[in-house]
Protein backbone atom coordinates (compact mmCIF):
# COMPACT_ATOMS: atom_id res chain seq x y z
CA UNK A 1 0.00 0.00 0.00
CA UNK A 2 1.29 3.41 -0.88
CA UNK A 3 3.00 4.66 2.23
CA UNK A 4 0.26 3.20 4.45
CA UNK A 5 1.62 2.76 7.92
CA UNK A 6 4.41 5.24 7.28
CA UNK A 7 2.28 8.16 8.26
CA UNK A 8 2.67 9.86 4.89
CA UNK A 9 -0.74 9.88 3.22
CA UNK A 10 -3.22 12.48 4.29
CA UNK A 11 -6.89 12.36 3.37
CA UNK A 12 -8.20 15.90 3.41
CA UNK A 13 -10.41 17.40 0.75
CA UNK A 14 -8.03 16.15 -1.93
CA UNK A 15 -6.33 12.77 -1.93
CA UNK A 16 -2.63 13.22 -1.33
CA UNK A 17 -0.11 10.37 -1.26
CA UNK A 18 3.66 10.20 -1.24
CA UNK A 19 5.54 7.12 -2.31
CA UNK A 20 9.21 6.06 -2.42
CA UNK A 21 10.69 6.19 -5.93
CA UNK A 22 11.36 2.43 -6.04
CA UNK A 23 7.61 1.70 -5.98
CA UNK A 24 5.31 1.85 -8.99
CA UNK A 25 2.87 4.80 -8.56
CA UNK A 26 0.25 3.35 -10.94
CA UNK A 27 0.13 0.12 -8.96
CA UNK A 28 -0.07 2.10 -5.73
CA UNK A 29 -3.05 4.10 -7.06
CA UNK A 30 -4.72 0.85 -8.14
CA UNK A 31 -4.29 -0.64 -4.66
CA UNK A 32 -5.38 2.57 -2.99
CA UNK A 33 -8.65 3.07 -4.89
CA UNK A 34 -9.56 -0.61 -4.73
CA UNK A 35 -8.74 -0.99 -1.07
CA UNK A 36 -9.94 2.35 0.28
CA UNK A 37 -12.66 3.56 -2.08
CA UNK A 38 -14.39 0.65 -3.76
CA UNK A 39 -13.51 -2.77 -5.08
CA UNK A 40 -15.16 -1.73 -8.37
CA UNK A 41 -12.46 0.84 -9.13
CA UNK A 42 -9.48 0.05 -11.36
CA UNK A 43 -6.76 2.05 -13.08
CA UNK A 44 -7.61 2.95 -16.67
CA UNK A 45 -5.64 5.15 -19.06
CA UNK A 46 -2.30 6.69 -18.20
CA UNK A 47 -1.21 9.86 -20.01
CA UNK A 48 2.06 11.73 -19.81
CA UNK A 49 1.43 15.45 -19.23
CA UNK A 50 5.04 16.66 -19.30
CA UNK A 51 8.52 15.49 -18.30
CA UNK A 52 7.66 15.34 -14.60
CA UNK A 53 3.94 14.69 -14.50
CA UNK A 54 1.56 12.01 -15.68
CA UNK A 55 -2.17 11.58 -15.34
CA UNK A 56 -3.70 8.28 -14.23
CA UNK A 57 -7.44 7.76 -14.81
CA UNK A 58 -9.61 5.55 -12.65
CA UNK A 59 -12.48 3.56 -14.19
CA UNK A 60 -15.33 1.72 -12.48
CA UNK A 61 -16.00 -1.90 -13.44
CA UNK A 62 -19.49 -3.12 -12.71
CA UNK A 63 -21.31 -6.40 -13.15
CA UNK A 64 -25.07 -6.46 -13.30
CA UNK A 65 -26.82 -9.77 -12.69
CA UNK A 66 -30.01 -10.15 -14.74
CA UNK A 67 -32.28 -13.14 -14.21
CA UNK A 68 -34.55 -14.40 -16.97
CA UNK A 69 -37.76 -15.65 -15.35
CA UNK A 70 -38.80 -17.66 -18.41
CA UNK A 71 -35.62 -19.67 -18.98
CA UNK A 72 -34.12 -19.48 -15.49
CA UNK A 73 -30.93 -18.26 -17.18
CA UNK A 74 -28.57 -15.68 -15.76
CA UNK A 75 -26.88 -12.89 -17.65
CA UNK A 76 -23.86 -11.21 -16.10
CA UNK A 77 -23.67 -7.86 -17.87
CA UNK A 78 -20.30 -6.19 -17.49
CA UNK A 79 -19.90 -2.45 -17.85
CA UNK A 80 -16.99 -0.02 -17.70
CA UNK A 81 -17.63 3.55 -16.51
CA UNK A 82 -14.50 5.43 -17.59
CA UNK A 83 -12.69 8.35 -15.99
CA UNK A 84 -14.50 8.70 -12.70
CA UNK A 85 -11.34 10.10 -11.10
CA UNK A 86 -7.99 11.43 -12.26
CA UNK A 87 -4.74 11.31 -10.30
CA UNK A 88 -1.67 13.38 -11.13
CA UNK A 89 1.69 11.74 -10.39
CA UNK A 90 4.58 14.19 -10.00
CA UNK A 91 8.24 13.13 -9.96
CA UNK A 92 10.17 14.45 -6.94
CA UNK A 93 13.88 13.81 -6.20
CA UNK A 94 13.30 10.92 -3.81
CA UNK A 95 9.61 10.23 -4.07
CA UNK A 96 6.44 10.28 -6.12
CA UNK A 97 3.81 12.82 -5.18
CA UNK A 98 0.31 11.63 -6.02
CA UNK A 99 -2.60 14.08 -6.00
CA UNK A 100 -6.19 13.08 -6.66
CA UNK A 101 -9.77 14.06 -5.98
CA UNK A 102 -11.56 13.19 -2.73
CA UNK A 103 -13.47 9.88 -2.86
CA UNK A 104 -16.83 11.69 -2.69
CA UNK A 105 -16.05 13.30 -6.03
CA UNK A 106 -15.33 9.93 -7.63
CA UNK A 107 -18.65 8.54 -6.38
CA UNK A 108 -20.43 11.69 -7.55
CA UNK A 109 -18.88 11.28 -11.01
CA UNK A 110 -19.99 7.66 -11.05
CA UNK A 111 -23.56 8.66 -10.18
CA UNK A 112 -23.49 11.43 -12.77
CA UNK A 113 -22.29 9.08 -15.50
CA UNK A 114 -24.90 6.50 -14.53
CA UNK A 115 -27.69 9.08 -14.77
CA UNK A 116 -26.31 10.24 -18.14
CA UNK A 117 -26.58 6.66 -19.37
CA UNK A 118 -30.17 6.49 -18.11
CA UNK A 119 -31.00 9.79 -19.95
CA UNK A 120 -29.47 8.44 -23.17
CA UNK A 121 -31.52 5.30 -22.85
CA UNK A 122 -34.68 7.41 -22.28
CA UNK A 123 -33.97 9.35 -25.47
CA UNK A 124 -33.53 6.10 -27.39
CA UNK A 125 -36.78 4.74 -25.96
CA UNK A 126 -38.69 7.88 -26.90
CA UNK A 127 -37.45 7.34 -30.44
CA UNK A 128 -38.52 3.69 -30.39
CA UNK A 129 -41.83 3.85 -28.49
CA UNK A 130 -43.21 7.39 -28.84
CA UNK A 131 -46.20 6.17 -30.86
CA UNK A 132 -47.23 3.75 -28.11
CA UNK A 133 -46.49 6.27 -25.37
CA UNK A 134 -48.89 8.95 -26.62
CA UNK A 135 -51.72 6.40 -26.43
CA UNK A 136 -51.42 6.16 -22.64
CA UNK A 137 -54.51 8.05 -21.36
CA UNK A 138 -52.60 10.14 -18.81
CA UNK A 139 -50.05 11.17 -21.44
CA UNK A 140 -52.89 12.00 -23.85
CA UNK A 141 -54.44 14.19 -21.17
CA UNK A 142 -51.14 15.97 -20.55
CA UNK A 143 -50.74 16.65 -24.25
CA UNK A 144 -54.40 17.65 -24.83
CA UNK A 145 -53.75 21.46 -25.03
CA UNK A 146 -51.26 20.82 -27.85
CA UNK A 147 -53.69 18.44 -29.54
CA UNK A 148 -56.46 21.07 -29.32
CA UNK A 149 -54.25 23.65 -31.03
CA UNK A 150 -53.37 21.18 -33.80
CA UNK A 151 -57.04 20.22 -34.33
CA UNK A 152 -58.02 23.92 -34.46
CA UNK A 153 -55.33 24.65 -37.05
CA UNK A 154 -56.43 21.71 -39.18
CA UNK A 155 -60.15 22.57 -38.98
CA UNK A 156 -60.05 26.38 -39.20
CA UNK A 157 -56.72 27.17 -40.86
CA UNK A 158 -55.62 29.75 -38.29
CA UNK A 159 -55.88 30.34 -34.56
CA UNK A 160 -55.94 33.97 -33.27
CA UNK A 161 -53.47 34.28 -30.39
CA UNK A 162 -56.15 36.22 -28.49
CA UNK A 163 -58.21 33.04 -28.55
CA UNK A 164 -55.36 31.16 -26.91
CA UNK A 165 -55.12 33.75 -24.17
CA UNK A 166 -58.80 33.22 -23.35
CA UNK A 167 -57.98 29.71 -22.11
CA UNK A 168 -57.12 29.13 -18.46
CA UNK A 169 -53.43 28.94 -19.33
CA UNK A 170 -51.11 31.69 -18.14
CA UNK A 171 -49.49 34.01 -20.75
CA UNK A 172 -46.16 32.27 -20.11
CA UNK A 173 -47.65 28.83 -20.71
CA UNK A 174 -49.31 30.00 -23.91
CA UNK A 175 -45.99 31.46 -25.09
CA UNK A 176 -44.31 28.12 -24.34
CA UNK A 177 -46.89 26.13 -26.33
CA UNK A 178 -46.48 28.48 -29.28
CA UNK A 179 -42.71 28.30 -29.08
CA UNK A 180 -42.83 24.49 -28.98
CA UNK A 181 -45.07 24.24 -32.05
CA UNK A 182 -42.96 26.80 -33.93
CA UNK A 183 -39.78 24.94 -33.07
CA UNK A 184 -41.06 21.67 -34.50
CA UNK A 185 -42.49 23.41 -37.61
CA UNK A 186 -46.15 22.63 -36.90
CA UNK A 187 -47.13 26.32 -36.58
CA UNK A 188 -45.90 29.82 -37.29
CA UNK A 189 -47.08 33.30 -36.29
CA UNK A 190 -48.80 35.44 -38.90
CA UNK A 191 -50.64 38.72 -38.21
CA UNK A 192 -51.40 37.95 -34.57
CA UNK A 193 -52.53 34.42 -35.36
CA UNK A 194 -51.04 30.94 -35.47
CA UNK A 195 -51.15 29.25 -38.89
CA UNK A 196 -49.96 25.78 -39.94
CA UNK A 197 -46.18 25.67 -40.35
CA UNK A 198 -44.06 23.89 -42.92
CA UNK A 199 -44.03 20.67 -40.89
CA UNK A 200 -47.84 20.49 -40.58
CA UNK A 201 -49.11 17.39 -42.46
CA UNK A 202 -51.05 18.38 -45.60
CA UNK A 203 -53.49 16.59 -47.90
CA UNK A 204 -55.61 13.57 -47.18
CA UNK A 205 -54.07 10.38 -45.95
CA UNK A 206 -55.19 6.83 -45.33
CA UNK A 207 -54.97 7.39 -41.63
CA UNK A 208 -57.84 8.50 -39.40
CA UNK A 209 -57.60 12.00 -37.87
CA UNK A 210 -56.84 10.44 -34.47
CA UNK A 211 -53.93 8.53 -35.96
CA UNK A 212 -52.64 11.69 -37.64
CA UNK A 213 -52.81 13.70 -34.41
CA UNK A 214 -51.27 10.84 -32.43
CA UNK A 215 -48.38 10.75 -34.91
CA UNK A 216 -47.95 14.52 -34.61
CA UNK A 217 -47.97 14.36 -30.82
CA UNK A 218 -45.56 11.42 -30.90
CA UNK A 219 -43.14 13.64 -32.84
CA UNK A 220 -43.64 16.45 -30.34
CA UNK A 221 -42.88 14.01 -27.55
CA UNK A 222 -39.87 12.47 -29.23
CA UNK A 223 -38.21 15.74 -30.21
CA UNK A 224 -39.21 17.94 -27.30
CA UNK A 225 -39.50 15.63 -24.33
CA UNK A 226 -37.24 17.69 -22.11
CA UNK A 227 -39.08 20.89 -23.08
CA UNK A 228 -42.42 19.23 -22.24
CA UNK A 229 -41.10 18.04 -18.91
CA UNK A 230 -39.04 21.01 -17.79
CA UNK A 231 -40.74 24.03 -19.39
CA UNK A 232 -44.35 22.96 -19.77
CA UNK A 233 -44.14 20.92 -16.54
CA UNK A 234 -46.04 18.04 -18.11
CA UNK A 235 -44.57 15.66 -15.55
CA UNK A 236 -47.47 13.19 -15.68
CA UNK A 237 -45.74 11.31 -18.50
CA UNK A 238 -42.40 11.00 -16.72
CA UNK A 239 -43.40 7.95 -14.68
CA UNK A 240 -44.42 5.92 -17.73
CA UNK A 241 -41.19 6.65 -19.55
CA UNK A 242 -39.20 5.71 -16.45
CA UNK A 243 -41.00 2.40 -15.96
CA UNK A 244 -40.60 1.49 -19.62
CA UNK A 245 -36.96 2.54 -19.58
CA UNK A 246 -36.26 0.44 -16.49
CA UNK A 247 -37.20 -2.63 -18.51
CA UNK A 248 -35.56 -1.67 -21.82
CA UNK A 249 -32.27 -0.53 -20.29
CA UNK A 250 -32.06 -3.86 -18.46
CA UNK A 251 -32.79 -5.72 -21.71
CA UNK A 252 -30.10 -3.65 -23.42
CA UNK A 253 -27.56 -4.60 -20.75
CA UNK A 254 -28.47 -8.26 -21.25
CA UNK A 255 -28.55 -7.75 -25.05
CA UNK A 256 -31.67 -9.87 -25.03
CA UNK A 257 -35.44 -9.44 -24.68
CA UNK A 258 -35.32 -11.00 -21.21
CA UNK A 259 -38.36 -12.04 -19.21
CA UNK A 260 -37.88 -9.88 -16.13
CA UNK A 261 -39.66 -10.82 -12.89
CA UNK A 262 -42.00 -7.98 -11.85
CA UNK A 263 -40.23 -7.61 -8.50
CA UNK A 264 -36.88 -7.19 -10.31
CA UNK A 265 -38.49 -4.64 -12.61
CA UNK A 266 -39.59 -2.60 -9.58
CA UNK A 267 -36.18 -2.94 -7.95
CA UNK A 268 -34.42 -1.78 -11.09
CA UNK A 269 -36.76 1.18 -11.46
CA UNK A 270 -35.93 2.25 -7.91
CA UNK A 271 -32.22 1.76 -8.65
CA UNK A 272 -32.19 3.79 -11.86
CA UNK A 273 -34.40 6.52 -10.38
CA UNK A 274 -33.59 6.68 -6.67
CA UNK A 275 -35.28 10.07 -6.25
CA UNK A 276 -38.50 9.07 -8.02
CA UNK A 277 -39.96 7.21 -5.05
CA UNK A 278 -43.71 6.58 -5.28
CA UNK A 279 -46.20 4.89 -3.03
CA UNK A 280 -47.07 1.25 -3.69
CA UNK A 281 -50.54 2.31 -4.83
CA UNK A 282 -49.20 4.80 -7.38
CA UNK A 283 -46.61 2.28 -8.53
CA UNK A 284 -49.12 -0.44 -9.27
CA UNK A 285 -51.33 1.99 -11.21
CA UNK A 286 -48.41 3.15 -13.35
CA UNK A 287 -47.20 -0.41 -13.93
CA UNK A 288 -50.64 -1.47 -15.11
CA UNK A 289 -50.95 1.46 -17.53
CA UNK A 290 -47.51 0.75 -19.00
CA UNK A 291 -48.60 -2.87 -19.49
CA UNK A 292 -51.93 -1.72 -21.03
CA UNK A 293 -50.05 0.46 -23.52
CA UNK A 294 -48.22 -2.60 -24.86
CA UNK A 295 -44.77 -1.01 -24.47
CA UNK A 296 -43.97 -3.73 -21.97
CA UNK A 297 -46.11 -6.88 -21.89
CA UNK A 298 -46.79 -9.39 -19.15
CA UNK A 299 -45.56 -12.85 -20.02
CA UNK A 300 -45.84 -15.64 -17.45
CA UNK A 301 -44.24 -14.62 -14.15
CA UNK A 302 -42.41 -11.66 -15.63
CA UNK A 303 -42.57 -8.88 -18.20
CA UNK A 304 -41.08 -8.67 -21.68
CA UNK A 305 -40.55 -5.91 -24.19
CA UNK A 306 -42.46 -5.65 -27.45
CA UNK A 307 -40.29 -7.34 -30.14
CA UNK A 308 -40.47 -4.41 -32.60
CA UNK A 309 -39.86 -1.74 -29.96
CA UNK A 310 -36.95 -3.79 -28.60
CA UNK A 311 -35.33 -4.01 -32.02
CA UNK A 312 -35.74 -0.28 -32.70
CA UNK A 313 -34.60 0.58 -29.17
CA UNK A 314 -31.43 -1.52 -29.36
CA UNK A 315 -30.49 0.20 -32.62
CA UNK A 316 -31.15 3.72 -31.26
CA UNK A 317 -29.51 2.98 -27.90
CA UNK A 318 -26.35 1.77 -29.65
CA UNK A 319 -26.24 5.03 -31.61
CA UNK A 320 -26.86 7.12 -28.46
CA UNK A 321 -24.20 5.28 -26.47
CA UNK A 322 -21.69 4.97 -29.35
CA UNK A 323 -21.70 1.19 -29.22
CA UNK A 324 -21.05 -0.61 -32.53
CA UNK A 325 -23.66 -3.11 -33.74
CA UNK A 326 -22.84 -6.72 -32.88
Amino acid at each position, binding site marked *: *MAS*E*GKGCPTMKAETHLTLPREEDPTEAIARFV*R*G*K*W*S*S*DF*VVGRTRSMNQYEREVSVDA*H*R*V*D*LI*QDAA*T*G*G*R*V*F*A*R*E*VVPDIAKFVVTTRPKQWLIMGPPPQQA*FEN*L*RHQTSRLVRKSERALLGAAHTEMVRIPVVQMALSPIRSILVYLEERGSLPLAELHKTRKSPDQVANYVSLLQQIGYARRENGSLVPGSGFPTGSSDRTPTEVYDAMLARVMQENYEFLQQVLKLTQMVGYLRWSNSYYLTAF*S*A*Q*DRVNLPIL*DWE*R*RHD*GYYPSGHRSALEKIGQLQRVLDSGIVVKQGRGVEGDPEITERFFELARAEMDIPSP
Partner: protein
Amino acid sequence: MPGVATKSALTPDEWRGRFKVVYQEDQCFPGAFFALLTSADLLFDTKVTRGLSMGDLNKKLGYRKGAATPAEALEKRAIKRWLGVFGLDVQWERESPKSFDNLEASTKRDDVSFSLTEVDLHFVTDYDSKAKIKGPDFSTDHAIVVLKIANGQVEFFDPTFNPALPSNAGTMQALFTPQFVKRWSRCMDPYYRVWVTRVIPLPVRRMPREGLRGVPPLSRWRQKGRGVPP
Protein backbone atom coordinates in the same frame (compact mmCIF):
# COMPACT_ATOMS: atom_id res chain seq x y z
CA MET B 1 -11.86 -25.42 15.30
CA PRO B 2 -11.17 -24.25 11.78
CA GLY B 3 -11.64 -20.60 12.43
CA VAL B 4 -8.79 -19.97 14.80
CA ALA B 5 -8.05 -16.52 13.51
CA THR B 6 -4.39 -16.17 12.71
CA LYS B 7 -2.83 -12.89 13.56
CA SER B 8 -1.97 -11.17 10.31
CA ALA B 9 0.60 -8.51 9.66
CA LEU B 10 -1.77 -6.99 7.16
CA THR B 11 -3.80 -3.96 8.16
CA PRO B 12 -7.53 -3.91 7.44
CA ASP B 13 -6.96 -1.32 4.71
CA GLU B 14 -4.80 -3.75 2.86
CA TRP B 15 -7.41 -6.41 2.45
CA ARG B 16 -10.65 -4.44 2.72
CA GLY B 17 -12.74 -4.63 -0.38
CA ARG B 18 -10.37 -6.87 -2.26
CA PHE B 19 -12.40 -9.98 -2.03
CA LYS B 20 -14.73 -9.14 -4.81
CA VAL B 21 -18.13 -10.26 -5.95
CA VAL B 22 -19.97 -7.48 -7.65
CA TYR B 23 -23.55 -7.25 -8.74
CA GLN B 24 -25.43 -4.04 -9.17
CA GLU B 25 -28.29 -5.33 -7.10
CA ASP B 26 -26.57 -7.55 -4.61
CA GLN B 27 -23.42 -5.55 -4.13
CA CYS B 28 -20.09 -6.99 -3.21
CA PHE B 29 -19.53 -8.53 0.16
CA PRO B 30 -23.11 -8.63 1.39
CA GLY B 31 -23.89 -10.79 -1.66
CA ALA B 32 -21.12 -13.14 -0.68
CA PHE B 33 -22.16 -13.13 2.97
CA PHE B 34 -25.70 -13.90 1.94
CA ALA B 35 -24.27 -16.90 0.11
CA LEU B 36 -22.49 -17.97 3.24
CA LEU B 37 -25.54 -17.69 5.48
CA THR B 38 -27.81 -19.32 2.90
CA SER B 39 -25.39 -22.23 2.79
CA ALA B 40 -25.41 -22.36 6.57
CA ASP B 41 -29.18 -22.72 6.49
CA LEU B 42 -28.90 -25.39 3.87
CA LEU B 43 -26.33 -27.46 5.73
CA PHE B 44 -27.14 -26.82 9.36
CA ASP B 45 -30.89 -26.67 9.03
CA THR B 46 -30.97 -23.17 10.54
CA LYS B 47 -33.29 -20.36 9.48
CA VAL B 48 -31.05 -17.31 9.38
CA THR B 49 -32.05 -16.18 5.90
CA ARG B 50 -35.71 -17.12 6.19
CA GLY B 51 -37.62 -13.91 5.58
CA LEU B 52 -34.37 -12.01 5.15
CA SER B 53 -33.60 -10.47 1.78
CA MET B 54 -30.15 -9.55 0.53
CA GLY B 55 -31.14 -5.91 1.13
CA ASP B 56 -32.10 -6.64 4.73
CA LEU B 57 -28.73 -8.28 5.30
CA ASN B 58 -27.00 -5.28 3.71
CA LYS B 59 -28.68 -3.02 6.26
CA LYS B 60 -27.78 -5.33 9.12
CA LEU B 61 -24.15 -5.41 8.04
CA GLY B 62 -24.05 -1.63 7.82
CA TYR B 63 -23.22 -1.68 4.14
CA ARG B 64 -23.32 1.71 2.41
CA LYS B 65 -23.96 1.50 -1.32
CA GLY B 66 -21.07 2.84 -3.32
CA ALA B 67 -18.68 2.87 -0.38
CA ALA B 68 -15.75 0.57 0.24
CA THR B 69 -17.01 -2.93 0.85
CA PRO B 70 -17.03 -3.76 4.55
CA ALA B 71 -15.17 -7.04 4.42
CA GLU B 72 -15.01 -7.00 8.18
CA ALA B 73 -18.79 -6.66 8.51
CA LEU B 74 -19.28 -10.18 9.87
CA GLU B 75 -16.68 -9.49 12.53
CA LYS B 76 -18.96 -7.09 14.38
CA ARG B 77 -19.99 -8.25 17.84
CA ALA B 78 -23.65 -7.54 17.15
CA ILE B 79 -23.56 -9.82 14.10
CA LYS B 80 -21.81 -12.56 16.08
CA ARG B 81 -24.49 -12.26 18.77
CA TRP B 82 -27.27 -12.32 16.20
CA LEU B 83 -25.84 -15.46 14.56
CA GLY B 84 -25.38 -16.99 18.00
CA VAL B 85 -29.16 -16.92 18.44
CA PHE B 86 -29.36 -19.38 15.54
CA GLY B 87 -26.61 -21.54 17.04
CA LEU B 88 -23.99 -20.35 14.56
CA ASP B 89 -20.57 -18.89 15.02
CA VAL B 90 -18.55 -16.97 12.49
CA GLN B 91 -14.77 -16.90 12.32
CA TRP B 92 -12.27 -15.56 9.86
CA GLU B 93 -8.70 -15.80 8.79
CA ARG B 94 -6.42 -13.53 6.82
CA GLU B 95 -3.24 -14.80 5.34
CA SER B 96 -1.31 -14.71 2.15
CA PRO B 97 -0.92 -16.47 -0.16
CA LYS B 98 -4.03 -18.60 -0.40
CA SER B 99 -3.75 -22.15 -1.55
CA PHE B 100 -6.01 -24.86 -2.78
CA ASP B 101 -4.55 -27.19 -0.14
CA ASN B 102 -5.80 -24.86 2.59
CA LEU B 103 -9.25 -24.93 1.12
CA GLU B 104 -9.27 -28.68 0.72
CA ALA B 105 -8.02 -29.15 4.28
CA SER B 106 -10.73 -26.87 5.64
CA THR B 107 -13.46 -29.05 4.15
CA LYS B 108 -11.97 -32.16 5.80
CA ARG B 109 -11.99 -30.88 9.34
CA ASP B 110 -14.05 -32.64 11.95
CA ASP B 111 -16.67 -29.99 12.52
CA VAL B 112 -19.04 -28.81 9.83
CA SER B 113 -17.68 -25.67 8.27
CA PHE B 114 -17.22 -24.20 4.82
CA SER B 115 -15.39 -21.39 3.09
CA LEU B 116 -16.37 -18.46 0.99
CA THR B 117 -14.21 -18.77 -2.10
CA GLU B 118 -13.24 -16.49 -4.93
CA VAL B 119 -13.36 -17.71 -8.53
CA ASP B 120 -13.25 -16.07 -11.94
CA LEU B 121 -16.71 -15.09 -13.19
CA HIS B 122 -16.31 -17.47 -16.16
CA PHE B 123 -16.65 -20.27 -13.63
CA VAL B 124 -20.46 -19.91 -13.86
CA THR B 125 -20.45 -20.92 -17.52
CA ASP B 126 -18.47 -24.07 -16.65
CA TYR B 127 -21.35 -25.61 -14.77
CA ASP B 128 -24.34 -23.74 -16.19
CA SER B 129 -24.68 -23.66 -19.95
CA LYS B 130 -27.58 -21.19 -19.72
CA ALA B 131 -25.49 -18.50 -18.02
CA LYS B 132 -24.16 -15.74 -20.28
CA ILE B 133 -21.49 -13.11 -19.76
CA LYS B 134 -21.98 -9.94 -21.79
CA GLY B 135 -20.22 -6.62 -22.23
CA PRO B 136 -16.59 -5.53 -22.29
CA ASP B 137 -14.01 -8.09 -21.32
CA PHE B 138 -12.45 -7.58 -17.92
CA SER B 139 -11.63 -10.04 -15.23
CA THR B 140 -14.16 -10.23 -12.44
CA ASP B 141 -14.29 -12.38 -9.37
CA HIS B 142 -17.34 -14.26 -8.23
CA ALA B 143 -18.00 -15.69 -4.77
CA ILE B 144 -19.13 -19.24 -4.16
CA VAL B 145 -19.23 -21.36 -1.04
CA VAL B 146 -17.18 -24.53 -1.21
CA LEU B 147 -18.92 -27.30 0.66
CA LYS B 148 -16.79 -30.34 0.04
CA ILE B 149 -13.75 -31.43 -1.93
CA ALA B 150 -13.62 -35.19 -2.38
CA ASN B 151 -13.30 -37.87 -5.05
CA GLY B 152 -11.88 -35.44 -7.57
CA GLN B 153 -14.91 -33.19 -7.32
CA VAL B 154 -15.70 -29.88 -5.72
CA GLU B 155 -19.17 -29.42 -4.33
CA PHE B 156 -20.21 -25.83 -4.06
CA PHE B 157 -23.11 -23.46 -3.65
CA ASP B 158 -23.60 -20.45 -5.92
CA PRO B 159 -26.25 -18.11 -4.49
CA THR B 160 -26.92 -16.51 -7.84
CA PHE B 161 -27.85 -19.83 -9.39
CA ASN B 162 -31.35 -19.95 -8.03
CA PRO B 163 -31.89 -17.08 -5.65
CA ALA B 164 -35.63 -17.62 -5.60
CA LEU B 165 -35.06 -20.93 -3.88
CA PRO B 166 -32.05 -20.43 -1.63
CA SER B 167 -32.87 -23.44 0.47
CA ASN B 168 -33.32 -25.72 -2.49
CA ALA B 169 -30.79 -28.51 -2.30
CA GLY B 170 -30.84 -28.59 -6.10
CA THR B 171 -28.80 -25.42 -6.11
CA MET B 172 -25.75 -27.31 -4.86
CA GLN B 173 -23.45 -28.03 -7.77
CA ALA B 174 -20.42 -30.19 -8.34
CA LEU B 175 -17.56 -29.74 -10.74
CA PHE B 176 -14.37 -31.67 -11.39
CA THR B 177 -11.45 -30.32 -9.39
CA PRO B 178 -9.19 -29.40 -12.37
CA GLN B 179 -11.98 -27.24 -13.80
CA PHE B 180 -12.43 -25.57 -10.46
CA VAL B 181 -8.71 -24.93 -10.05
CA LYS B 182 -8.60 -23.43 -13.55
CA ARG B 183 -11.10 -20.80 -12.45
CA TRP B 184 -9.60 -20.38 -9.03
CA SER B 185 -9.01 -16.69 -8.72
CA ARG B 186 -5.45 -15.88 -9.62
CA CYS B 187 -5.43 -12.36 -8.23
CA MET B 188 -2.72 -11.65 -5.71
CA ASP B 189 -5.00 -10.07 -3.14
CA PRO B 190 -4.47 -11.09 0.46
CA TYR B 191 -6.46 -14.09 1.40
CA TYR B 192 -9.54 -13.57 3.49
CA ARG B 193 -11.59 -16.56 4.45
CA VAL B 194 -14.79 -16.64 6.48
CA TRP B 195 -16.18 -19.69 8.21
CA VAL B 196 -19.54 -20.35 9.65
CA THR B 197 -19.77 -23.18 12.14
CA ARG B 198 -22.61 -24.72 14.08
CA VAL B 199 -21.73 -24.33 17.73
CA ILE B 200 -25.00 -25.57 19.18
CA PRO B 201 -25.75 -29.12 18.09
CA LEU B 202 -28.81 -29.79 16.02
CA PRO B 203 -31.84 -30.51 18.20
CA VAL B 204 -32.66 -34.19 18.58
CA ARG B 205 -35.92 -34.88 16.90
CA ARG B 206 -38.65 -36.16 19.17
CA MET B 207 -40.34 -39.32 18.08
CA PRO B 208 -43.76 -38.47 16.69
CA ARG B 209 -46.62 -39.69 18.80
CA GLU B 210 -48.17 -42.84 17.57
CA GLY B 211 -51.73 -42.91 16.50
CA LEU B 212 -51.62 -39.53 14.84
CA ARG B 213 -52.51 -39.35 11.19
CA GLY B 214 -49.53 -40.32 9.05
CA VAL B 215 -47.58 -41.94 11.91
CA PRO B 216 -47.41 -45.71 11.53
CA PRO B 217 -48.03 -47.71 14.72
CA LEU B 218 -44.86 -49.27 16.03
CA SER B 219 -46.07 -52.47 17.54
CA ARG B 220 -48.33 -55.23 16.52
CA TRP B 221 -49.97 -54.87 19.92
CA ARG B 222 -51.17 -51.43 19.00
CA GLN B 223 -52.16 -52.54 15.51
CA LYS B 224 -54.62 -54.86 17.18
CA GLY B 225 -56.14 -51.90 18.95
CA ARG B 226 -55.37 -53.09 22.48
CA GLY B 227 -54.29 -49.71 23.73
CA VAL B 228 -51.24 -49.16 25.88
CA PRO B 229 -48.84 -52.17 26.07
CA PRO B 230 -48.36 -53.77 29.46
